[in-house]
């Protein structure tokens, strides 16, 4: 054998084999190791805010946590105690209105984009505008709903708030539903067509049931996002210190309560703002985690 036998550590071969290990004496290796260390530090710092927020919520919000938060109304200036039951109801009602508008429209639109005419010009434009809308400033949804609903009806209302939120939910629902309908294997659709199904029967009986987990994931994500929104509600739903009587009157929401109370000089209100943040984050995370559980690929 002309090659030195490396495997057995033959002394005669040593001089011919370059040492392929990199030690930190090597400048290139040192630079790489330093950058890797920096990456670790940067990535760990990036995780700090989430834990800091959660810590503050649990400590500050948890201190005030109790049943009266859910059953009582927001206190006025110097009053002690109180809760935000009406704001929780308001948030849930407005998110429900938004979902009732955006989910059917979004799924129908997605069916068109993914199944009926994926290459149609309308589909291309619609898909592009939906993507543009995902980056749409939430405050402008509020401005829009103010101009389109509040001015028209002459009053701030839960309905206007719900419509503003639906503008923000719609693109998420459309895009995720389209994505999950596209994932349905073509052979299943072909089989259904071959059985003599009409195209809407294929969509209703094959595509939608198969894509349901993915669609629900998108819906839950959109709901989680909408529940946390505050800018669109500022001048559409406004705020109210009383229980919700009808969807045609100003309505309280958790996020607006946090915004209003955070700037107040009263200890009690600030504690309530933290407690409301804790409740709001729990609602948002509930839907967010639900969406992850539904959408988890089944092995």
């Amino acid at each position, binding site marked *: 054998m002309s090659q030195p036998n490396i495997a057995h550590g033959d002394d005669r071969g040593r001089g011919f084999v370059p040492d392929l290990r990199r030690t930190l004496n090597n400048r290139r290796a040192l630079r790489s190791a330093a950058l890797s260390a920096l*990456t670790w530090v940067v990535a760990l710092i990036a995780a700090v805010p989430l834990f800091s927020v959660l810590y503050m919520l649990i400590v500050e919000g948890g201190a005030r946590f109790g049943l009266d938060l859910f059953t009582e109304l927001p206190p006025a200036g110097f009053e002690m105690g109180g809760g935000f039951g009406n704001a929780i109801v308001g948030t849930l009602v407005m998110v429900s209105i938004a979902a009732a508008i955006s989910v059917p429209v979004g799924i129908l639109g997605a069916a068109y984009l993914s199944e009926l005419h994926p290459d149609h010009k309308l*589909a291309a434009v619609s898909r592009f505008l939906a993507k543009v809308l995902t980056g749409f400033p939430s405050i402008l949804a509020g401005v829009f709903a*103010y101009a389109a609903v509040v001015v028209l009806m002459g009053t701030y209302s839960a309905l206007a708030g719900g419509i503003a939120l639906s503008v923000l939910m719609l693109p998420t629902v459309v895009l995720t539903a389209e994505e999950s309908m596209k994932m349905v294997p073509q052979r299943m659709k072909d089989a259904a067509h071959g059985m003599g199904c*009409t195209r809407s029967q294929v969509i209703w009986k094959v595509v939608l049931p198969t894509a349901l987990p993915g669609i629900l994931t998108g819906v839950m994500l959109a709901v989680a996002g909408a529940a*946390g929104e*505050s800018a669109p509600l*500022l001048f559409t739903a406004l705020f109210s210190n009383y229980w919700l009587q009808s969807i045609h009157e100003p309505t309280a929401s958790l996020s607006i309560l946090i915004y209003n109370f955070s700037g107040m000089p009263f200890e009690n209100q600030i504690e309530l703002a933290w407690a409301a943040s804790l409740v709001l984050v729990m609602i948002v995370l509930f839907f967010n985690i639900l969406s992850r559980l539904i959408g988890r690929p089944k092995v």
Partner: protein
Amino acid sequence: MAPNPFAAAVDAGSISGPPAAYDYLSDRVFRILAYAGAGAVVVLVAYIVWEIGGQAAPAVAKYGIGFLTSTTWDVGNEKFGILPQIWGTLYSSLLALLIGGFFGLFVAIFLTQGFLPPKLAIVFRTIVELLAAIPSVVYGLWGIYVVIPALRPIADWLHETLGFIPFFSTSLSGPGLMPAALVLAIMILPTVAAISQDALHLVPFKVKEAAYGMGTTRWEAILKVFLPTASRGIFGSMVLGFGRALGETMALAMLIGNANQITLSLFSPANTLASLLASNFPEAGAVEIRALMYAAIALLAITLIVNVVGLFVMTVAVKKQ
């Protein structure tokens, strides 16, 4: 009822039949509804532009282009200008992009280049995604009670020792640009990280093999091969992150101080278009509302342009790879 074209296609002796009249009809109705659903997105965007534009039209006619370049917001004298807000919007978003983009890109590299075992990487990815789930208003509250107090000693020290630099020319008296930009950076980090990760995942495996096969170190491969290959997608992520920052409202309304001034100082209060809308709209009278609608259309124009550019870059990036 619409005639069913399949009815004619029946063969007398066949066991197959055309769709029943009900099936045919429901198919038609469903298709029309789906068409309307897809059209709804287009109509909605057009309606938004038309509605906000229509409300802003009187102010646009009255104040003209000077609205964009004048600096006073005086309701009493009906003098309105949004240059400070435009400046504040761009400045705070740019600062946020510098910080959030840096962190987001490193997080994307951290998650795609084998720094963590796959299971831990999923946990860490979830943590970063949850950052995006925290509502803006909660970040605002957190910013007031955590970020500003934490930042104040650093800001004071910088102001005292390096006060001659314009960036540190004022002290942090509470709300200001820097806390706002920091919180904004946290909010756009998940966007940048997620899209950059997708771009880095798209780098073909054989390119990685080739790079490592040439004997590069991990970072030579990342800096000289992977990042340039994924650069379009990463650039797109930055543009979209910038777009998010421009339109972000509540956290800024709570943290930036709502002072209509043009300043370079990182620690002085400022204002943005979105937070001007949030803080003035609820109590505005008819005249001010028209001016605010003008500001809204300016914000709409800026964010639409940035988002369309970002999406365009992304589309090109995906096609090229």
